[in-house]
């Protein structure tokens, strides 16, 4: 803490962040040349759960068992939600147009409600646009979870590795050493596979180039049998995810998309609860249903 630090960061007042009143994203002002983002095509998603299991495998998620699941203590960072048409009337579900599936995980909000409230600063916004969770810093006040509109933060209610014996020998050999196994009392959530983006950035840096789409896939994206998930650097106009956001005219820093205000909207990109202004980094594409049959 020196005076120069103070002054320097004081002047960062609102400049380091892409969320601003003026027209954004202002990538010039963005602190890093990477902004991780995702696009999920709900029309392609079949609800098969492959992403969720891949997440268990990649991120050392504990299997809590029936009793704890019944208490709502499941630890799936990526959950698949199923919705019905309510065509038959309120509370009555019609199945004749199928169901809708929605993979839900941390939306990595640019203005995340969880970040400001952590008493110890265990959850912060990284320069590459992730909502970080520093497990060791967490003291378990759960304020972040209370404040998350999506309820995608998961708390370690028990000491899963040691006391609950979630990974009995030799199942523990499967654990991914690239990230920790969280113990009781800390909050955790989807990190967009930080360990993978880290490696990709590291390798690109060593080779002196920018991170490309081909460098990194999240575990869910890699597994998805229908390729519904796109992940990449929104900052890079060449990336698939940037193209998708662009084509759907979804703007990272707007809570009401301009296209939505226009009549006759013919695009299907949207973000969940964006009217709350957390500026989520995950764009969903509406499910499409043929009406001719």
């Amino acid at each position, binding site marked *: 803490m020196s005076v120069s630090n103070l002054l320097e960061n004081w002047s960062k007042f609102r400049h380091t962040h892409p969320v601003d009143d003026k027209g954004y994203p202002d990538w010039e002002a963005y602190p890093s040349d990477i902004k991780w983002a995702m696009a999920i095509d709900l029309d392609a998603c079949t609800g098969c759960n492959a992403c969720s299991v891949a997440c268990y495998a990649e991120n050392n998620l504990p299997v809590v068992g029936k009793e*704890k699941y*019944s*208490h*709502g*203590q*499941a630890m799936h960072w990526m*959950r698949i*939600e199923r919705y019905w048409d309510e065509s038959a009337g309120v509370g009555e579900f019609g199945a004749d147009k199928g169901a809708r599936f929605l993979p*839900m995980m941390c939306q990595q909000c640019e203005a995340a*409600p969880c970040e*400001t*409230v*952590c*008493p*110890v*600063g265990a959850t912060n916004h990284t320069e590459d646009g992730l909502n970080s969770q520093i497990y060791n*810093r*967490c*003291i*378990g*006040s*759960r*304020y972040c*979870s*209370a*404040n998350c*509109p*999506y*309820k995608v*933060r*998961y*708390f*370690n*209610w*028990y*000491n899963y590795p040691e*006391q609950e014996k979630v990974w009995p020998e030799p199942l523990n050999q499967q654990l991914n050493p690239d990230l920790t196994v969280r113990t*009781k*009392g*800390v*909050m955790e959530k989807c990190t967009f596979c930080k360990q993978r983006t880290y490696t990709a950035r590291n390798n690109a840096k060593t080779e002196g180039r920018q991170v490309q789409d081909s460098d990194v896939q999240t575990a869910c994206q890699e597994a998805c049998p229908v390729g519904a998930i796109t992940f990449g650097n929104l900052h890079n106009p060449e990336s698939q995810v940037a193209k998708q956001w662009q084509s759907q005219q979804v703007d990272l820093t707007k809570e009401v998309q301009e296209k939505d205000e226009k009549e006759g909207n013919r695009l299907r990109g949207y973000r969940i*609860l964006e009217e*709350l202004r957390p500026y989520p980094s995950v764009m969903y594409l509406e499910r499409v249903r043929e009406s001719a049959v």
Partner: protein
Amino acid sequence: MGKDIREDIAWAQINKDVLKSLESPRKLYWVILLVAIAMVGVAVGCEIYQYNVGLGVGNFDNPNVWGLYIATFIFWIGMSHSGTLLSAILHLMHADWRKPIYRFAEAMTTFSLMTAGLFVMVHLGRLWQVYYALPYPSERWVWPNFQSPLLWDAMAIFTYLSSSVLFLYIGSIPDLAICRDNIHQGWRKKLYTLLALGWEGTDRQWRNFRVTYLTIACFLIPLAVSVHSIVASDFAMSQQPGWHITSFPPYFVAGALYSGCAAIITLFIILRYVFRFEEYMTLPILKKTVRLTFAIAMVWTYLNCVEFAATWYSHDVAAKAVLIEKATGRFAPFFWGMIFCGSVLPFVMMVKKWQTNIPVMFAVSLLLNLGMWLERWMIVAPTFSHGYYPWTWDEHMWPSMVQWGIVFGSFGWFTLLFMVFCKIVPSVSMYEVKEMVYHRSLALKKEEQAVKEELAVKGAN
């Protein structure tokens, strides 16, 4: 209406009566103490279990992350506001009937804050790392997040607690001196000698005492308001439906004063009996307290209505849904229980006959306290189980016995601290009762004089 206090009590008698409370309370005192210890035992057991196994044993789940702990935390914080109300606000307003009862109210402030602080600890997932939340220069070079309302909370509570302790202590120095002068044996003598700081009641001491006491009282009032409005901002600063309400800070403060007053009535009745304070904690004083409580109850009711009306009138669909869910869903019995206890029951206090009826008031005050606890629960829980995201709504979460045990035990903990305090420090402020008696007798004399003069004039005529 009777007198707040007899004007002809001899000062020496006051000393005698109050000091007696330090020596030989009624048997009930020991019963209460034992029960309180047992309750604390339950809570300690639950906490040890929870600490070792993990918070999951409390039946928390993903949306319902806070359960009863934070609700009870707010309850205790609220309770603490009574002391400030009686000792600071009424002091500034020169309401001298507060004098026999403000000491224990202040003690209540201190101990309920200490109880509230425990809930902050108890609800933490990693209690053993709590020092991460302290702002001190460490080898990690990191600081807590000052943007978090939780930290403001911690700071406000710390300030409030330490200020209250100081206020309580400063205010009882003259009484501690009396104890020092009257108790001549054992550790108590040493304790009182130490605590009395050599107080002799000199004019210099009294002069500075008066200013200091007034200054701290002045500080305490905005502090108390800020504490509960900061607790309110834990919720109001968030975006959750049912919490994100502008009227929360005043609403919380009103609720705090309300529950504090209700608790004062309860403790008033208990202390009056246990320590034989019938001469000092008189029924007229009870009546005044009851009337004050009724007034605050009406403020609270009004603010409650404002909150509902604002939600009702607004276009905030989610907040409206939470309100409807509160009133009709799983929480309906508790919600209506809160309305009954908080807004309907106080009308009992309007009946003059009952204002001084000890059994009735005892029952009413306990129910008011229950209502205020329910209020806090109804603020915290419904928003969790009926937030923005419909997929995660939760109908089945119910606090486990561990949570209930700790909440239950907290009442024991508070009672224990309070009762031990009352046994060590005079719970009626002797010097101030003397002042009260003195001033009242002067006033009486003046009155008599006036009457006499009038009579004399009449007689002369």
